[in-house]
Every structure is written in C-alpha cells, then in structure tokens.
C-alpha cells in the first residue's frame, strides 16, 4: 500500500494543491466540527452579512455527531455523518474561506464546482469506523453554540486522523472515477 501523506491542519494552500483524489492522508493539528444545526445557523448569519462566532477561514470542518464518551475517554465513537445534508450550506462556507471538509458520501454538483473555484478539498472518512477515528482525537473544546449539545461546534486536536481525498481542488472526483474504474459490465 502506498505510504499515506501527512498534512497539518489548518491547511496551507500549498498542501491543498498537492492533494489528489485517492490519496490516503493523515491529518495532524486542529479541525472544527459542525453538522446540520450548526451549519444552518452559520449560513443564516453569513447571509445577513453578520460575523460568525468562529473564524472558518482556512479551516477544515468535520461533519460528526459523536456517541457519548464513557469514563476515561475525551470523546465517544466519532465517525463521519452523510455530507450531502450540508450541501445546501456549503458553497457559502467555501466562499467565506473554508478550505476542507471531512465526511462521508458524494457531494452535489454545486459543492464540487464551488470547491474547484475556491480551491478546497473534500476528504472521506470511513463511515462506521467510529471507534478507530475517536482514537486519533486528542483534545476537544466547544467553541460555539454550546446549546446544540452534541451538535455544538467543537475544536478537535487530531493526530494522524485517517482520510482519503475524495474531491480535490482540481475538480477530481473519486466517487465517479473510482466507481468507473472498478465497474464490470
């Protein structure tokens, strides 16, 4: 198996441009979390032109709603949720400078186009590998919308967090290309 690439979050523009679909990547650094409810709030603020409670410029957002943590753990199992539900809000987030997203499943055409335009990447985490992924999360801090409970925006400190580049900043789409490659008529 090809050696995974190691990258540091937040991402540098240089790193983003180097990532290609199919790359296996290990992320170390700080990423944000957010899913349906948090996206809705951020989107509504952005539409009104108001400031967001967190700066998403240059950041990676991980779409996750963890299970509760048992004693001795900082976070419960934390696998990705379906990214498609965030699609309606995503072009706006990218416009505001978001550079990376981690989730599972295909993105809409609007999101893919916006990623290419704003030079961002979409990274697939393995759905259902929640116990494994949680091992790579070293610290958790709530940074906004505490009232949303499990859906609050958190900052995660991650180490060697495993993802695969599904959509790169050059317009590549692994869902499409990978499936085509292994299709047998």
């Amino acid at each position, binding site marked *: *198996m*090809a050696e995974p690439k190691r990258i540091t979050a937040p991402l540098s523009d240089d790193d983003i441009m180097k990532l290609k679909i*199919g790359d*296996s990547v290990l992320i170390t650094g700080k990423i944000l979390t957010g899913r349906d409810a948090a996206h809705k709030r951020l989107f509504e603020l952005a539409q009104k032109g108001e400031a967001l409670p967190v700066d998403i410029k240059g950041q990676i957002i991980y779409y*996750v*709603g*963890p*299970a*509760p*943590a*048992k004693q001795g*753990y900082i976070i*419960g*199992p*934390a*696998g990705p*949720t*379906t990214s*498609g539900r965030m699609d309606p809000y995503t072009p706006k987030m990218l416009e505001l400078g978001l550079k990376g997203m981690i989730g*599972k*499943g*295909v993105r809409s055409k609007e999101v893919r186009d916006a990623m290419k335009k704003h030079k961002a990447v979409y990274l*697939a985490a*393995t*759905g*259902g*590998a*929640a*116990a*494994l992924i*949680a*091992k790579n999360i070293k610290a958790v801090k709530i940074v906004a919308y505490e009232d949303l409970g*499990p859906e609050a925006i958190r900052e995660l400190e991650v180490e060697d967090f*495993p993802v*695969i580049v*599904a959509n790169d900043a050059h317009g590549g789409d*692994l*869902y499409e*290309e*990978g*499936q*085509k*490659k*292994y*299709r*047998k*008529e």
Partner: protein
Amino acid sequence: MREVDYNQVVETVSRLCMEANYFLGGDVVKAFNDALKKEESETAKNILNQLLQNAEISRTEKIPICQDCGFAVVFLELGEDVHVKGNIIKAINEGVSKGYTEGFLRKSIVSDPVKGKNTGDNTPAIVHTMIVPGDTVKITVAPKGGGSENMSEVKMMKPADGIEGVKNFVIDRVQRSSSNPCPPTVIGVGIGGTFEYVAFLAKKALLRDIGQRHPDPFYADVERELLQRINNLGIGPMGLGGRTTSLDVFIEVHPRHIASFPVAVNTNCHAARHKTAVI
C-alpha cells in the same frame, strides 16, 4: 406453564443492546478478511483494514462500532407455553433504555416524527412479535442505523415482472444508493406477502449470518447472482470504487395475492449488528 421474570427480560435486552453495538459478528469480520483478499483497489483495502481495526477496538474496549447506535429493532419469538410476568413490551423498552444509557450508546429517536424531540433513551423500540411453539422466549436485538435504512425501498411490482424484475429492482436500488449506506452493505430482499409484510421480510432477511444461503436452491442461486452483479457495479467500500460493494444478499419469500407482487429492499451497512438470547 413456565414463568419468566419481568426483570430477566429487561436485563437480557439491555445486555443485547450493548453487545450488538460493541461486538461485530464473527461472520462480518470474516467477510471483511475475505473481501480484503479479493480487493484490487488500494483505497478499498485501506478502508477494509480500518473496519477490521475498528471492530477490534470496539470489541476490546467495549465501545460502539459506529456512533449511530441505531433504532433498536427487536424480534421477539414468544413460546406458546411460556408466560412473562408483566408486560413484555414494557420490559423490552425498559431494557433498551437501560442498555443505551448505561452502555454509552447514542440516542437517536425522536418522539414524534414531525413535532418531536429526542426521547433521551432511544425508546421506543420497534418490536416484531411471533408466537412460536415451545416454552422459551427468544429475543434478537438488531440496532439499525439511519444512513443505510434511508436507502431502502418497497415496490409493488407486477406478477409478470417475475424474478428478472426483482433482480433489476435490487440492482437499481443498490446503484442509486451509491456511497450513502456505508458500503460494503448487506442487502435484505423480501418477495411476496403484502405491502407492509414484504418490508418486514426484507428486514428479517438481515438477521442471517453472512454466507448463509436460502434453503431453497432456486433462491440461493438468485442470492449468489445478485451478489456478483452488485459487486460488479464497482461502487466499492464507502463508494470510492472497488470490488466490495456488498458482503451478502439475503432473500425471504412469502405467499402472495394473485394480483400482487410486492418486493422490498432493506439496506444494511457493514455495521450489520444483531445479537440473540434465549430465556
């Protein structure tokens, strides 16, 4: 008549909820290993390896395989010669509440589909009751994740569509599901019965162990053919391309009305969870 204590049902269901979420079946783990040998895609191999590691972490540390700990679907086979002291459905729900709370499992149930809030303890369970001969109570807990459940469908086909129609419907359903149900998936297919019963058949089909073929050789062949055709779609683990789209296909059939031909597909993810106990 044999008597079973209310609390015994509560404790059993609670334990099964936790075990189903922590301990992935040996049949599924074996299926990952078998798939790994056949996979051609590096990405797919990477994902299958992650799933194997994940199952191992869950098993040894007793933490859920997936953060979506599912809707608690319970299959209850109640012997006709056994009496449970108290209301058994209430006991099952108490068990679910206890298991999800004490087991640190995520609670994902909303009290009313339109106006509701999270019920806080993952109740109520969905309970399918069957009265069977004997004096035992057999309980299977099969937690069902939302991502894969959403990729399921019932279709009222025409009798003239026949088995070829069924096959095409199943393939089309899997194709449209693509990456959404966390492939590699397990596909349950119901054929026959009525509109509501066919969905139950498809769900029940998911309780089989990977590799266990239908006893009727005709349907066993259809299962094999469907699995091969699905894996030729190229969707692969997590939809990123590969040879492993489904781990198995299970068919359950039932007599039908002369005018109807109901078919259902219930999609399960690789977190194919079910645990059984007999009291």
